Protein backbone atom coordinates (compact mmCIF):
# COMPACT_ATOMS: atom_id res chain seq x y z
CA UNK A 1 0.00 0.00 0.00
CA UNK A 2 1.16 3.51 -0.76
CA UNK A 3 2.90 5.15 2.15
CA UNK A 4 2.42 8.71 3.28
CA UNK A 5 6.07 9.43 2.53
CA UNK A 6 5.53 8.43 -1.08
CA UNK A 7 2.65 10.89 -1.28
CA UNK A 8 4.88 13.68 0.08
CA UNK A 9 7.51 12.76 -2.45
CA UNK A 10 4.95 12.65 -5.24
CA UNK A 11 3.57 16.07 -4.26
CA UNK A 12 7.05 17.52 -4.23
CA UNK A 13 7.87 16.11 -7.68
CA UNK A 14 4.48 17.24 -9.05
CA UNK A 15 5.04 20.80 -7.85
CA UNK A 16 8.57 20.99 -9.19
CA UNK A 17 7.99 19.40 -12.58
CA UNK A 18 4.37 20.21 -13.53
CA UNK A 19 5.03 23.33 -15.61
CA UNK A 20 7.92 21.82 -17.55
CA UNK A 21 6.01 18.63 -18.25
CA UNK A 22 2.91 20.59 -19.27
CA UNK A 23 4.99 22.70 -21.66
CA UNK A 24 6.47 19.51 -23.11
CA UNK A 25 3.00 18.00 -23.55
CA UNK A 26 1.63 21.14 -25.20
CA UNK A 27 4.53 21.22 -27.66
CA UNK A 28 4.61 17.51 -28.48
CA UNK A 29 0.98 16.41 -28.36
CA UNK A 30 -0.97 16.18 -31.60
CA UNK A 31 -4.17 17.55 -30.14
CA UNK A 32 -4.21 20.00 -27.26
CA UNK A 33 -7.52 18.53 -26.10
CA UNK A 34 -5.51 15.48 -24.99
CA UNK A 35 -3.19 17.56 -22.77
CA UNK A 36 -5.08 17.04 -19.51
CA UNK A 37 -5.42 13.30 -20.08
CA UNK A 38 -1.73 12.94 -20.94
CA UNK A 39 -0.69 14.89 -17.84
CA UNK A 40 -2.94 12.84 -15.57
CA UNK A 41 -1.88 9.52 -17.07
CA UNK A 42 1.79 10.51 -16.79
CA UNK A 43 1.62 11.41 -13.11
CA UNK A 44 -0.57 8.43 -12.30
CA UNK A 45 2.06 6.18 -13.81
CA UNK A 46 4.75 8.03 -11.89
CA UNK A 47 2.76 7.39 -8.71
CA UNK A 48 2.54 3.67 -9.48
CA UNK A 49 6.29 3.54 -10.14
CA UNK A 50 7.03 5.40 -6.91
CA UNK A 51 5.14 2.69 -5.03
CA UNK A 52 7.14 -0.06 -6.67
CA UNK A 53 10.66 1.27 -6.58
CA UNK A 54 12.86 4.00 -5.21
CA UNK A 55 13.36 6.87 -7.63
CA UNK A 56 16.21 9.29 -7.34
CA UNK A 57 15.35 12.97 -7.56
CA UNK A 58 18.32 13.35 -9.87
CA UNK A 59 17.13 13.41 -13.49
CA UNK A 60 13.54 12.91 -12.35
CA UNK A 61 12.34 15.38 -15.00
CA UNK A 62 13.96 13.35 -17.80
CA UNK A 63 12.42 10.24 -16.31
CA UNK A 64 8.94 11.79 -16.34
CA UNK A 65 9.46 13.04 -19.90
CA UNK A 66 10.13 9.41 -20.86
CA UNK A 67 6.76 8.42 -19.36
CA UNK A 68 5.11 11.41 -21.06
CA UNK A 69 6.47 10.38 -24.46
CA UNK A 70 4.78 7.00 -24.14
CA UNK A 71 1.50 8.61 -23.13
CA UNK A 72 1.67 11.04 -26.09
CA UNK A 73 2.25 8.13 -28.47
CA UNK A 74 -0.82 6.40 -27.06
CA UNK A 75 -2.91 9.43 -27.96
CA UNK A 76 -1.48 9.59 -31.49
CA UNK A 77 -4.13 8.01 -33.69
CA UNK A 78 -4.36 7.41 -37.40
CA UNK A 79 -3.13 10.24 -39.54
CA UNK A 80 -3.63 12.86 -36.86
CA UNK A 81 -0.14 14.00 -37.51
CA UNK A 82 -0.47 14.57 -41.22
CA UNK A 83 -3.98 15.90 -40.88
CA UNK A 84 -2.68 18.79 -38.82
CA UNK A 85 -0.16 19.78 -41.47
CA UNK A 86 -1.39 23.09 -42.78
CA UNK A 87 -0.94 24.86 -46.07
CA UNK A 88 -1.29 28.07 -44.06
CA UNK A 89 2.42 28.76 -44.01
CA UNK A 90 2.76 28.38 -47.76
CA UNK A 91 1.24 31.80 -48.37
CA UNK A 92 4.51 33.66 -48.91
CA UNK A 93 2.92 37.10 -49.30
CA UNK A 94 1.26 36.82 -45.92
CA UNK A 95 4.51 35.85 -44.30
CA UNK A 96 6.27 38.87 -45.76
CA UNK A 97 3.48 41.12 -44.54
CA UNK A 98 3.64 39.69 -41.04
CA UNK A 99 7.42 39.99 -41.00
CA UNK A 100 7.01 43.74 -40.88
CA UNK A 101 5.08 43.55 -37.62
CA UNK A 102 6.50 43.90 -34.14
CA UNK A 103 7.00 40.74 -32.13
CA UNK A 104 4.41 41.79 -29.60
CA UNK A 105 1.03 41.39 -31.30
CA UNK A 106 -1.30 43.11 -28.90
CA UNK A 107 -4.51 41.21 -28.30
CA UNK A 108 -6.05 44.39 -26.86
CA UNK A 109 -5.90 46.01 -30.31
CA UNK A 110 -8.48 43.54 -31.52
CA UNK A 111 -12.09 44.29 -30.71
CA UNK A 112 -13.58 41.13 -29.24
CA UNK A 113 -16.91 41.90 -27.64
CA UNK A 114 -17.95 38.46 -26.59
CA UNK A 115 -17.11 38.16 -22.91
CA UNK A 116 -17.25 34.40 -22.64
CA UNK A 117 -13.59 33.62 -23.15
CA UNK A 118 -14.10 30.01 -22.09
CA UNK A 119 -16.14 29.64 -25.27
CA UNK A 120 -13.51 31.48 -27.31
CA UNK A 121 -10.74 29.24 -25.94
CA UNK A 122 -12.82 26.17 -26.84
CA UNK A 123 -13.19 27.62 -30.32
CA UNK A 124 -9.41 28.11 -30.60
CA UNK A 125 -8.81 24.55 -29.37
CA UNK A 126 -11.16 23.17 -31.99
CA UNK A 127 -9.05 24.52 -34.85
CA UNK A 128 -7.93 21.88 -37.27
CA UNK A 129 -4.42 23.31 -37.30
CA UNK A 130 -3.43 22.42 -33.75
CA UNK A 131 -0.47 24.75 -33.91
CA UNK A 132 -3.00 27.54 -33.30
CA UNK A 133 -4.07 26.53 -29.75
CA UNK A 134 -0.48 25.50 -29.00
CA UNK A 135 0.85 28.90 -30.00
CA UNK A 136 -1.92 30.67 -28.08
CA UNK A 137 -1.17 28.62 -24.98
CA UNK A 138 2.57 29.20 -25.14
CA UNK A 139 2.25 32.90 -26.01
CA UNK A 140 -0.59 34.05 -23.79
CA UNK A 141 -0.57 31.54 -20.94
CA UNK A 142 3.10 30.70 -20.58
CA UNK A 143 4.28 34.13 -21.76
CA UNK A 144 6.89 32.70 -24.10
CA UNK A 145 8.24 35.05 -26.74
CA UNK A 146 7.64 34.42 -30.44
CA UNK A 147 11.29 33.51 -30.76
CA UNK A 148 11.06 30.96 -27.95
CA UNK A 149 7.87 29.45 -29.42
CA UNK A 150 9.44 29.23 -32.84
CA UNK A 151 12.33 27.31 -31.28
CA UNK A 152 10.23 24.81 -29.32
CA UNK A 153 7.75 24.20 -32.15
CA UNK A 154 10.52 24.15 -34.74
CA UNK A 155 8.77 26.58 -37.10
CA UNK A 156 9.82 30.01 -38.24
CA UNK A 157 8.87 33.19 -36.41
CA UNK A 158 6.83 34.55 -39.32
CA UNK A 159 4.64 31.51 -39.17
CA UNK A 160 3.95 32.09 -35.45
CA UNK A 161 3.11 35.76 -36.03
CA UNK A 162 0.93 34.77 -38.95
CA UNK A 163 -0.99 32.26 -36.81
CA UNK A 164 -1.58 34.71 -33.97
CA UNK A 165 -2.47 37.62 -36.22
CA UNK A 166 -4.84 35.66 -38.44
CA UNK A 167 -6.53 33.93 -35.52
CA UNK A 168 -7.06 37.22 -33.67
CA UNK A 169 -8.51 38.72 -36.86
CA UNK A 170 -10.80 35.73 -37.14
CA UNK A 171 -11.85 36.05 -33.49
CA UNK A 172 -12.55 39.71 -34.08
CA UNK A 173 -14.70 38.98 -37.11
CA UNK A 174 -16.52 36.11 -35.38
CA UNK A 175 -16.91 37.50 -31.88
CA UNK A 176 -16.35 41.19 -32.37
CA UNK A 177 -19.65 42.28 -33.84
CA UNK A 178 -21.84 40.96 -31.06
CA UNK A 179 -23.78 38.67 -33.39
CA UNK A 180 -22.48 35.54 -31.78
CA UNK A 181 -22.41 36.80 -28.27
CA UNK A 182 -25.42 34.76 -27.22
CA UNK A 183 -24.36 31.47 -28.81
Amino acid at each position, binding site marked *: *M*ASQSNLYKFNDI*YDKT*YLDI*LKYVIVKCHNIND*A*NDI*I*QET*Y*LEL*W*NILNKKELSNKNIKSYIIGITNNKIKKH*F*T*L*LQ*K*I*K*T*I*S*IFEKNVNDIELIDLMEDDIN*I*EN*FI*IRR*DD*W*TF*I*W*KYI*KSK*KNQNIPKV*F*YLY*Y*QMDLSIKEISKVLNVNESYIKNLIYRTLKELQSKFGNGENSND
Partner: protein
Amino acid sequence: MTNKEKLKNAIDKDINKTKNYNLVINNMDKGSNNKKHLWKLCFVPICLSILIIGIMFINQNRLTNELSQNFNTDEEQNLKLNINILNNDEIISLDTNVDIILDNNINIPYPFKYDGGEIIIPHDLDKSNTYIVYTNANKDSYDSLSYNVLYNYILCYTNDNGRNIKVAYSKDNIPIRDYFFKDNGLKTTTINGIELKIYQFENNYFTNFNYNNYNFDIETSNITEKELSDFLLSIIK
Protein backbone atom coordinates in the same frame (compact mmCIF):
# COMPACT_ATOMS: atom_id res chain seq x y z
CA MET B 1 -9.82 42.96 -17.05
CA THR B 2 -7.91 42.88 -20.35
CA ASN B 3 -8.53 40.41 -23.17
CA LYS B 4 -5.24 38.73 -22.37
CA GLU B 5 -6.20 38.23 -18.73
CA LYS B 6 -9.60 36.88 -19.74
CA LEU B 7 -7.99 34.43 -22.15
CA LYS B 8 -5.46 33.40 -19.48
CA ASN B 9 -8.25 32.74 -17.01
CA ALA B 10 -10.18 30.68 -19.55
CA ILE B 11 -7.09 28.61 -20.37
CA ASP B 12 -6.30 28.17 -16.68
CA LYS B 13 -9.81 26.89 -16.01
CA ASP B 14 -9.35 24.32 -18.77
CA ILE B 15 -5.77 23.17 -18.16
CA ASN B 16 -5.40 23.52 -14.44
CA LYS B 17 -2.65 22.25 -12.16
CA THR B 18 -4.86 21.72 -9.11
CA LYS B 19 -7.66 20.08 -11.10
CA ASN B 20 -5.18 17.68 -12.71
CA TYR B 21 -3.63 16.93 -9.31
CA ASN B 22 -7.03 16.13 -7.80
CA LEU B 23 -7.92 13.85 -10.69
CA VAL B 24 -4.62 11.99 -10.33
CA ILE B 25 -5.21 11.60 -6.58
CA ASN B 26 -8.77 10.33 -7.20
CA ASN B 27 -7.47 7.78 -9.66
CA MET B 28 -4.79 6.68 -7.17
CA ASP B 29 -7.57 5.91 -4.71
CA LYS B 30 -9.56 4.03 -7.32
CA GLY B 31 -6.45 2.03 -8.17
CA SER B 32 -5.89 0.96 -4.56
CA ASN B 33 -9.59 0.13 -4.05
CA ASN B 34 -9.60 -1.92 -7.20
CA LYS B 35 -6.63 -3.93 -5.95
CA LYS B 36 -8.61 -5.08 -2.91
CA HIS B 37 -11.24 -6.61 -5.16
CA LEU B 38 -8.87 -7.61 -7.91
CA TRP B 39 -9.48 -11.35 -7.57
CA LYS B 40 -13.24 -10.82 -7.93
CA LEU B 41 -12.78 -8.63 -10.98
CA CYS B 42 -10.31 -11.01 -12.57
CA PHE B 43 -12.33 -14.18 -12.11
CA VAL B 44 -15.00 -13.53 -14.74
CA PRO B 45 -12.62 -12.15 -17.43
CA ILE B 46 -10.27 -15.11 -16.95
CA CYS B 47 -13.13 -17.58 -17.44
CA LEU B 48 -14.34 -15.62 -20.46
CA SER B 49 -10.83 -15.43 -21.92
CA ILE B 50 -10.42 -19.21 -21.63
CA LEU B 51 -13.77 -19.71 -23.35
CA ILE B 52 -12.95 -17.22 -26.14
CA ILE B 53 -9.46 -18.67 -26.71
CA GLY B 54 -11.03 -22.13 -26.98
CA ILE B 55 -13.56 -20.94 -29.56
CA MET B 56 -10.90 -18.99 -31.47
CA PHE B 57 -8.63 -22.04 -31.53
CA ILE B 58 -11.39 -24.19 -33.02
CA ASN B 59 -12.35 -21.48 -35.55
CA GLN B 60 -8.71 -20.80 -36.45
CA ASN B 61 -8.21 -24.43 -37.41
CA ARG B 62 -11.38 -24.33 -39.50
CA LEU B 63 -10.38 -21.03 -41.15
CA THR B 64 -6.88 -22.23 -41.93
CA ASN B 65 -8.31 -25.31 -43.61
CA GLU B 66 -10.77 -23.23 -45.63
CA LEU B 67 -8.10 -20.73 -46.67
CA SER B 68 -5.67 -23.41 -47.72
CA GLN B 69 -8.43 -24.86 -49.90
CA ASN B 70 -9.86 -21.64 -51.34
CA PHE B 71 -7.22 -18.94 -51.36
CA ASN B 72 -5.25 -17.93 -54.39
CA THR B 73 -1.92 -19.15 -55.63
CA ASP B 74 1.46 -18.82 -53.90
CA GLU B 75 2.42 -16.31 -56.55
CA GLU B 76 -0.33 -13.96 -55.40
CA GLN B 77 0.47 -14.39 -51.72
CA ASN B 78 4.04 -13.29 -52.34
CA LEU B 79 2.99 -10.21 -54.29
CA LYS B 80 5.65 -7.49 -54.23
CA LEU B 81 4.16 -4.09 -53.53
CA ASN B 82 5.90 -1.05 -55.01
CA ILE B 83 5.55 1.41 -52.17
CA ASN B 84 5.99 5.17 -52.64
CA ILE B 85 7.44 6.58 -49.44
CA LEU B 86 6.13 10.03 -48.56
CA ASN B 87 7.58 12.68 -46.33
CA ASN B 88 5.85 15.65 -44.67
CA ASP B 89 6.47 17.97 -47.62
CA GLU B 90 4.58 15.69 -49.98
CA ILE B 91 1.33 15.68 -48.02
CA ILE B 92 -0.98 18.65 -48.10
CA SER B 93 -4.07 18.93 -45.94
CA LEU B 94 -7.31 20.38 -47.25
CA ASP B 95 -10.36 21.79 -45.56
CA THR B 96 -13.21 19.42 -46.29
CA ASN B 97 -16.79 20.26 -45.55
CA VAL B 98 -18.46 16.99 -44.66
CA ASP B 99 -20.51 15.34 -41.96
CA ILE B 100 -19.41 11.82 -41.00
CA ILE B 101 -22.05 9.71 -39.25
CA LEU B 102 -21.22 6.54 -37.34
CA ASP B 103 -24.04 4.05 -37.74
CA ASN B 104 -23.33 0.36 -37.20
CA ASN B 105 -26.96 -0.64 -37.52
CA ILE B 106 -27.64 0.66 -41.00
CA ASN B 107 -27.58 -1.60 -44.04
CA ILE B 108 -25.13 -0.22 -46.57
CA PRO B 109 -23.91 -1.72 -49.86
CA TYR B 110 -21.11 -4.15 -49.00
CA PRO B 111 -18.48 -3.98 -51.73
CA PHE B 112 -16.54 -7.18 -51.03
CA LYS B 113 -18.87 -10.14 -51.23
CA TYR B 114 -18.61 -11.02 -54.86
CA ASP B 115 -17.83 -14.38 -56.43
CA GLY B 116 -18.33 -15.87 -52.97
CA GLY B 117 -15.10 -14.26 -51.80
CA GLU B 118 -14.30 -12.73 -48.44
CA ILE B 119 -11.72 -10.13 -47.56
CA ILE B 120 -8.70 -11.04 -45.46
CA ILE B 121 -8.38 -8.81 -42.41
CA PRO B 122 -5.70 -9.37 -39.73
CA HIS B 123 -7.33 -11.42 -36.97
CA ASP B 124 -6.59 -8.94 -34.22
CA LEU B 125 -8.70 -6.23 -35.90
CA ASP B 126 -11.70 -7.42 -33.98
CA LYS B 127 -13.85 -4.27 -34.13
CA SER B 128 -15.58 -2.80 -37.12
CA ASN B 129 -17.46 0.44 -37.57
CA THR B 130 -19.55 1.78 -40.42
CA TYR B 131 -19.52 5.47 -41.30
CA ILE B 132 -21.50 7.40 -43.85
CA VAL B 133 -20.04 10.57 -45.31
CA TYR B 134 -22.47 13.32 -46.26
CA THR B 135 -21.69 16.55 -48.08
CA ASN B 136 -23.55 19.79 -48.16
CA ALA B 137 -25.37 20.86 -51.32
CA ASN B 138 -25.79 24.36 -49.96
CA LYS B 139 -22.23 25.65 -49.56
CA ASP B 140 -23.34 28.73 -47.64
CA SER B 141 -25.00 26.76 -44.86
CA TYR B 142 -23.17 25.07 -41.99
CA ASP B 143 -26.35 23.72 -40.44
CA SER B 144 -25.87 19.99 -39.79
CA LEU B 145 -29.27 19.27 -41.36
CA SER B 146 -28.06 20.62 -44.69
CA TYR B 147 -25.44 17.84 -44.91
CA ASN B 148 -27.78 15.49 -46.71
CA VAL B 149 -25.98 14.45 -49.89
CA LEU B 150 -24.71 10.88 -49.50
CA TYR B 151 -21.13 10.85 -50.75
CA ASN B 152 -19.39 7.64 -49.70
CA TYR B 153 -19.25 4.89 -47.07
CA ILE B 154 -16.37 3.96 -44.78
CA LEU B 155 -15.75 0.56 -43.20
CA CYS B 156 -13.18 0.70 -40.42
CA TYR B 157 -11.61 -2.48 -39.05
CA THR B 158 -9.68 -1.70 -35.89
CA ASN B 159 -8.44 -2.82 -32.49
CA ASP B 160 -7.44 -1.12 -29.23
CA ASN B 161 -3.74 -1.05 -30.12
CA GLY B 162 -3.97 1.54 -32.89
CA ARG B 163 -3.95 -0.93 -35.79
CA ASN B 164 -6.65 -0.36 -38.36
CA ILE B 165 -7.77 -0.54 -41.96
CA LYS B 166 -10.19 2.08 -43.27
CA VAL B 167 -11.95 1.37 -46.54
CA ALA B 168 -13.84 4.28 -48.07
CA TYR B 169 -15.89 3.41 -51.15
CA SER B 170 -18.59 4.61 -53.46
CA LYS B 171 -20.00 3.66 -56.83
CA ASP B 172 -20.72 7.24 -57.88
CA ASN B 173 -17.98 9.33 -56.25
CA ILE B 174 -14.27 9.22 -55.55
CA PRO B 175 -14.22 8.93 -51.72
CA ILE B 176 -13.49 12.27 -50.13
CA ARG B 177 -10.22 12.99 -48.30
CA ASP B 178 -8.93 15.97 -46.40
CA TYR B 179 -5.39 15.65 -47.71
CA PHE B 180 -3.64 14.93 -50.97
CA PHE B 181 -0.20 13.89 -52.12
CA LYS B 182 2.13 15.68 -54.45
CA ASP B 183 2.25 13.05 -57.16
CA ASN B 184 5.54 12.92 -59.03
CA GLY B 185 4.89 10.06 -61.45
CA LEU B 186 5.40 7.46 -58.81
CA LYS B 187 5.80 3.69 -58.76
CA THR B 188 2.79 1.53 -59.48
CA THR B 189 1.77 -1.95 -58.41
CA THR B 190 -0.39 -4.19 -60.61
CA ILE B 191 -2.72 -6.64 -58.90
CA ASN B 192 -4.66 -8.96 -61.19
CA GLY B 193 -4.64 -6.40 -63.99
CA ILE B 194 -5.58 -3.42 -61.81
CA GLU B 195 -2.88 -0.77 -61.60
CA LEU B 196 -2.66 1.16 -58.36
CA LYS B 197 -0.30 3.48 -56.53
CA ILE B 198 0.48 2.63 -52.92
CA TYR B 199 1.87 5.34 -50.66
CA GLN B 200 3.48 5.04 -47.26
CA PHE B 201 3.81 7.73 -44.60
CA GLU B 202 5.43 6.49 -41.39
CA ASN B 203 3.30 3.50 -40.33
CA ASN B 204 0.42 4.33 -42.64
CA TYR B 205 -0.33 3.03 -46.12
CA PHE B 206 -2.73 4.64 -48.61
CA THR B 207 -4.06 3.56 -51.94
CA ASN B 208 -7.06 4.16 -54.18
CA PHE B 209 -8.38 2.32 -57.19
CA ASN B 210 -11.51 1.36 -59.06
CA TYR B 211 -12.61 -2.24 -58.98
CA ASN B 212 -15.91 -4.04 -59.51
CA ASN B 213 -17.63 -0.69 -60.23
CA TYR B 214 -16.57 0.70 -56.85
CA ASN B 215 -14.11 3.53 -56.23
CA PHE B 216 -11.99 2.42 -53.25
CA ASP B 217 -9.82 4.59 -51.01
CA ILE B 218 -7.89 2.64 -48.41
CA GLU B 219 -5.90 3.92 -45.44
CA THR B 220 -4.14 1.65 -42.96
CA SER B 221 -2.30 2.29 -39.75
CA ASN B 222 0.31 0.03 -38.15
CA ILE B 223 -0.46 -2.74 -40.66
CA THR B 224 2.45 -4.68 -42.16
CA GLU B 225 3.20 -4.72 -45.87
CA LYS B 226 2.30 -8.42 -45.99
CA GLU B 227 -1.05 -7.78 -44.30
CA LEU B 228 -1.75 -4.97 -46.78
CA SER B 229 -0.78 -7.21 -49.66
CA ASP B 230 -3.09 -10.02 -48.40
CA PHE B 231 -5.89 -7.53 -47.92
CA LEU B 232 -5.57 -6.05 -51.42
CA LEU B 233 -5.31 -9.49 -52.99
CA SER B 234 -8.49 -10.53 -51.26
CA ILE B 235 -10.33 -7.54 -52.77
CA ILE B 236 -8.88 -7.48 -56.28
CA LYS B 237 -9.43 -10.99 -57.56
